[in-house]
């Protein structure tokens, strides 16, 4: 009974925190549903009156919108899948093995993250131009992967490091091969970390603008971030459209999270550690 009370009060705090953090999001979604006069008004309109879906409709009717969706999906899924795998392997190497050059690798991974990326726009463009990868999804994918890998390796290292080696060794004593022990023991334990890192990679690639804009010129190759920028012209910004666009951009990631969130929460740990 007392436990239930404690949990309920935690829930109340949790919901309060949620409300505070989500307030700007609530403002964004209602703005997308408001008629123009209510978007920026002297007395706030807490609820759109009347609700209008025009902003969403026109946002999705922009030429090449679905094209942009497909391109963004291709880029992001390729980047996330490959990067998570590569980063995980590298993280395991750093966390589990001693090898010559490990410190150098670690220092490089940290150092690369310190470079402000906007300074690299021109050099990246010239490099990709020299191998004909301007106006190509492949060039963008390669860049995003290179940029996201150091962060991913760095955070995954922390997760892998926390898994005691004893667990693998115990499994090997029981007859499993090294790889098998690894997959059965370590992998589920770092799953929450992998998912969180995957979402990180997803968002980085999904919402990046400047490189995508600079590299991709054909209308058929462009991405959702460029679509989002199209709500600002020399005539100012279509605020309702922009907020509708921003909402549409964020939703797939939330859906992705809801699908995999079961992997993030505990449940997996209790079983394996307790034995």
């Amino acid at each position, binding site marked *: 009974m007392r436990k239930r009370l404690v949990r309920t009060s*935690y*829930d109340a705090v*949790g919901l309060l*925190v949620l409300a505070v*953090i*989500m307030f*700007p*999001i609530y*403002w964004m979604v209602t*703005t997308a549903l408001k008629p123009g006069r209510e978007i*920026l008004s*002297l007395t706030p309109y807490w609820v759109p009156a009347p609700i209008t879906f025009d902003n969403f409709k026109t946002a999705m009717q922009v030429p090449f919108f679905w094209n942009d969706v497909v391109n963004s999906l291709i880029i992001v899924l390729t980047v996330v899948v490959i990067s998570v795998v*590569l980063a995980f*392997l*590298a993280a395991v190497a*750093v966390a589990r093995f*001693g090898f010559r050059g490990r*410190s150098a*690798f670690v220092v490089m991974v*940290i*150092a*690369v993250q*310190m*470079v*402000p990326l*906007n300074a690299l726009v*021109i*050099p990246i463009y010239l*490099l990709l131009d020299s191998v004909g990868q301007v106006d190509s999804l492949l060039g963008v994918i*390669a*860049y995003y992967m*290179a*940029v996201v890998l150091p962060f991913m390796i760095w*955070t995954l290292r922390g997760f892998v490091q*926390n*898994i*005691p*080696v*004893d*667990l693998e*060794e*115990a499994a090997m004593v*029981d007859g499993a091969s090294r790889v098998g022990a690894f997959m059965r023991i370590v992998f589920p334990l770092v799953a929450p*970390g992998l998912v*969180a890192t995957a979402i*990180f990679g997803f*968002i980085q690639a999904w*919402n990046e603008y400047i490189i995508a804009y600079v590299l991709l010129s054909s209308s058929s190759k462009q991405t959702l*971030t460029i679509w*989002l920028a199209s709500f600002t012209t020399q005539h100012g910004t279509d605020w309702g459209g922009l907020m509708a666009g*921003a909402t549409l*951009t*964020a939703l797939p*990631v*939330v859906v992705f999270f809801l699908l995999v969130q079961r992997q*993030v929460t505990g449940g*997996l*740990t209790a079983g394996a550690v*307790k*034995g």
Partner: protein
Amino acid sequence: MRAAGQMSAATATRPRRIEAAPFRELIVRKGLPYALIAPALLVILGVLGYPLAMLVWLSTQHYGLRELFQHQGRFAGLSNYATILADPQFRYALEVTAIFTLVNVALSMIIATFIALLMERVSSFVRVLLGAGLVFVWATPVIPSIDLWQWMFDYEFGVVNWLLTRIGAGNYIHHNWFENPLQGFTVITVVVVWGAIPFLALMLHAGLTQVPRELVEAAQIDGARGWQVFQNVTFPTLKPLLLILLSLSTIWDFQVFNQVWVMLDQRPSQDYFVMSVFSFQESFRVSQYGLGSTAAVIMVAILAIASFFYVRQTVRSIEEFGR
């Protein structure tokens, strides 16, 4: 598994050496780590190697539009460095950014940890809601989200202004939050921290799943209260991750650009020149790529110096853990 179950608290966190293996396994084992890092290394160096080298080279060149189009720099030696380092605004930018980074990192980490701990304790329904909410915030494209915050604090239309006036905290109608840099930076801090929390909280939440449940229970049976459990069991497990997130936070907050730039309608006054704004304004904005590259190199150097001890400590602890 029996062996895992017999593991005691003492050995749970200390690694042990693996016994020597036959020669073939030795080759595989010796070669394995290199094979594991090779793909990632190839991608990183393959894509970023040349640009990073070019960045350093550009910092020694006078490289404006004309030079860019002709692919021909004019050698400038270290004069770019002299120009930037001697600029009084550089000193100001450094001071402001240092304080700004400190405040933002501290606030982000503390609040994110609090939220991660909270997420452990709520019912699963609320946990999923919180997670989804955090992801929503995290996934919202940066520029529109900053626009939203700007509206909320707008001189004429600000919801926050309206609310504060309504509850009697003063008259905030027609109040410009950015006239006074201290107030302005407070608002910007709110925006930065708000945007930083989701990643940190979700990472920490994932990290918390690695805290051995039985150790927590053992400590509680021994009579430890919440704070002590945190101190003695949770925190040590979380420490490597906390340090990593701390380092990432510091790097990112040091490089904050959009929040300042967009909040101030792309025309920040000199009071708001944090490092990235200062470097952008002096160089890229006027297509001076040589100068911009110099500013970038200087920023990396500053971060490297600031994190020197952290990096050295990390490398050392890795080697200690090593096999």
